[in-house]
């Protein structure tokens, strides 16, 4: 029985429609409409040496079959996957500890996490590039302590890029995990402890399995979030690390090839939706097996 059926009489029905109308219209204007424009643009004709004009051509999609694009899509999805795993692996224990603290002590931590959210991708990228540099970076500390001969540069590199992206995703991950983890019944861990499990064992055999839906949700959120990052891969990565978002930006803003950029975006969207569907299906089938 749907929620609308449960409403008493026609007035309730109408009121429910009215309540639903506002978000539907907004969703239509700000999500569906731009998406339709994106789809339309991907079929436009790229004018060589000019910009683009309305048409229905498949050239842009034909270009996607090239090895460069296919390899880069795989690379982009892998980067997003690695960042999702790293961010959740760091944020889950952190958030769990946080929710076990008294309310009073939780607030400063939550404020800190929210403050990090206020930083733009640009600032985060540039801060990390300074922190990992040879001239002003962290390697100067061991040099100063006499543990190293000369300072080293760690950026740009694949590791620096993963670090930056994970940092960017961390606060979002905490915010996604916080509500389900704070609702977690403390007696679960206590029961495990009473049965003789160590705190670490209780965490891995009780807390983590019970939180599987929350973990899956957080993984998917970070994955999708990271797919769109285009400043950090440029600032902290070398050209071979640049993700599809960087190349999409180049196509659109540096080459005025908006149709190609639109086609690339749609392909990335399709690939990531497919991956998410598979992940959710695996998550469901596991839950079905006791």
């Amino acid at each position, binding site marked *: 029985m749907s929620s609308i059926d449960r409403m008493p009489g026609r007035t309730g029905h109408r009121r429910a429609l009215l309540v639903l109308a506002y978000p539907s219209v907004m969703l239509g204007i700000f999500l569906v409409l731009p998406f339709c424009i994106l789809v339309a643009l991907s079929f436009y004709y*790229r*004018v*060589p*040496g*000019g*910009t683009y004009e309305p048409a229905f051509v498949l050239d842009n999609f034909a270009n996607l079959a090239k090895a*460069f694009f296919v390899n*880069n899509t795989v690379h982009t999805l892998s980067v997003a996957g690695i960042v999702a795993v790293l961010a959740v692996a760091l944020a889950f224990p952190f958030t769990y500890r946080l929710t076990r603290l008294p309310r009073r002590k939780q607030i400063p931590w939550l404020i800190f996490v929210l403050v990090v959210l206020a930083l*733009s*991708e*640009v600032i985060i990228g*540039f801060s990390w*590039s300074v922190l990992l*540099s*040879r*001239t*002003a970076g962290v390697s100067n500390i061991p040099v100063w302590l006499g543990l190293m001969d000369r300072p080293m*540069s760690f950026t*740009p590199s694949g590791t620096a890029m993963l670090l930056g992206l994970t940092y960017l995703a961390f606060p979002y991950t905490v915010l996604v995990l916080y509500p389900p983890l704070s609702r977690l019944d403390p007696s679960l861990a206590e029961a495990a402890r009473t049965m003789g499990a160590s705190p670490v064992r209780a965490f891995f055999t009780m807390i983590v399995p019970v939180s599987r839906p929350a973990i899956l949700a957080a993984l998917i959120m970070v994955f999708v979030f990271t797919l*769109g*990052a*285009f*400043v950090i891969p*440029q*600032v902290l990565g*070398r*050209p*071979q690390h*640049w993700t599809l978002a960087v*190349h999409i*930006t*180049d196509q*659109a*803003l*540096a*080459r*005025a*090839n*908006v149709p190609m950029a639109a086609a690339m975006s749609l392909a990335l969207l399709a690939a990531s939706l497919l991956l998410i569907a598979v992940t959710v299906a695996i998550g469901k089938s596991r839950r079905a097996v006791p």
Partner: protein
Amino acid sequence: MKTRKPAPSRRHFLAGTAAAGGALAMGLPFGAPAVHAQERSLKIGTYGGYFEESFTKHIYPDFTKATGIAVESIPEPTGDQWLLQLEQAAKAGVAPADVSMMANTVRIRGERSGLWAALDESKVANIGNLKPEFVFKYPDGRLYGAGAVSWYITLVTNTESYPEAPTSWAEFWDTENKDAIGLLALSSNSFLLEITAHTFFGGNDVLNTEEGVIKVLEKLAEAKSNVKLWYRDEGQFQAALQSGEIPMGQYYHDVAGLAAADGFPVRSTFPKEGGVVDSGAWVLTKASKKTEEAETFINYMCQPSVQAALSRKVGTAPVVPRESTDLTDDEFNAVSSEIAPIIPKYDLYIDKGDWVAEKWIEMITG
């Protein structure tokens, strides 16, 4: 395609587009504010950041004094982004700026799509002062643009890391400079194809065929292991150059000069093969209703005295013959060089642009 400010974050971009959309929606029904109804004014776009600040501070006030036309300065984004915005706005009959400064490849794209308004040659008589290569016309002969300023991309070094000034672009290939070099990330703004062609193949002619372009790209790929940073954002490279993190690279002569004047250990050298000369042109969007004011402005900017002021205050090279200005040797050498410049092969980025970009990105990411 000069980059004059950091790449915007997604958040900034979203905020920007939302604001632009709002401005479009708000601006249409109300038009110009009533207060300025009697006053002549002109919206002028230049690259946001240092350029836009310098023009606002040193150039526009004198123009307003001379002509009574008030200037509203618009910081424009770089690359093709501004062209796309102008084109979209023109379809709606809106002009986010009347006159814009456009780098060559972008100017040509706009010419191909007929975005620029034709100008009355008799109203911009001073255009006769310009070197002929800076006068831009449609194939049917209608005038639509005039050179604004020109600038050089040169070989820059950190003076602490390199006490001796280098003399050739070939330094980029020297194994001594491993992981020490910063280069512009796009084929169409780095002009590294032309630099490689002049350094190893005797000039731009090798770039006339696709085989030639591939040969040049292969030569350039040999320098890849020396390149630490392929930058899109000037600020990122400038900070690294000043600190010595990345002590060598290609950069804009004018900005490097300013950094040196501010006391940073930075020098800009015209290599023996020549610096790369690029330029910006004034164009008027066809959606603008301020043709007369725009012509007055362009005519004003084409005077040798204004060109000299630009060299002194903004650090750009004049687009009028040097002899027509009162620039001293020192002043001229600060913004230009007697060494014959490398001239970009613009048609490569226009007619074969997508092909070159594809081969280029395969080369640098490979």
